[in-house]
């Protein structure tokens, strides 16, 4: 049991951070409002979790302008994708072992 839990990533203990990564695994990029709507969050809540993931180098932030409006998009880094997949495997292993 203990060995099983070593692959669990502390960063993904938060449902929000896991959610952000889930979206960025299947979309090359997503902007702030899309993430906010999908995860049903407030601006501040989402921003703090994004910051945490950014500090871990799991996501990359790109700022650009659409016309005159600033638009910030987020994408998962290689490191982030790897970490997410490891975490998923750990979850799957746990489920498989529960069955036994």
């Amino acid at each position, binding site marked *: 049991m203990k060995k099983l839990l070593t692959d669990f990533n502390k960063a993904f203990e938060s449902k929000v951070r*896991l959610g952000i990564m889930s979206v960025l695994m*299947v*979309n090359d990029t997503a902007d702030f409002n899309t993430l906010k709507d*999908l995860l049903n969050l407030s601006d501040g809540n989402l921003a703090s979790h994004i910051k945490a993931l950014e500090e871990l180098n799991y996501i990359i932030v790109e700022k650009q302008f659409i016309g005159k409006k600033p638009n910030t998009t987020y994408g998962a880094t290689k490191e982030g994708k790897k970490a997410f997949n490891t975490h998923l495997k750990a*979850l*799957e292993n746990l*489920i498989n072992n529960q069955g036994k």
Partner: protein
Amino acid sequence: MQRQIEEVMQHLDLTSVSLALYHKVLSMKEKTPSPLETLTEIKQLMERSSRFISLSGLSGVFAGVYALAGAYAAYRYLNLEGLGYFSGENFFERTRSTFPFLIIDALVILILAIGTGIYLTTRKAKKDGNSILDNTARKLLINLSIPLVTGGLFCIALIYHGAVLYVPPSMLVFYGLSLVHASSYTRNDIRLLGLTEIALGLISLLIIGYGLFFWALGFGVLHIIYGTYMYYKYEV
């Protein structure tokens, strides 16, 4: 008597304490979801963020009904003009005069089908609380359009060169390719519909001259079958 009441009270007190504890355990359980719940949530989030799932099955059924009605109108019109549709050669020369009617017929079907589709899909998106023109919808439309518009231009070129016999098979094949291509951006069931349309188009290329029949089968009957299937699978 007094003692009995005390005993009962004590008992009641104990039950309420154990009940409270039981509820606390339950609520703690709710706070940390099981790995299976987490995985399900991840999967749903991935689907919701990358696929447009508000597409209404009913719009398929309506498109099919319009297509059948339109095909029947074309069939009747050709017969009234003394052109047995399924008979023989020089089809292009004999049918040239019927083109305006057939093209208007096709456009009416197209506009009705798209209009009903937009209406029903908007209604469903509103009901589900999804936005109609979000990222996923845009991706779906772009990816559906590329093969579909190519097919449309291809068919116009065929008509221009007088190769009308190849128009219905080409419409089916290109429409099928569009659906297969677009299936990554909406419900995956669309993929099988696309493959069926492609197969039907290829068969009708071999049995040439029965274009109207295959067209009605592909755009009419298949839409009704798939639309009904998807309606019952996702909306009931």
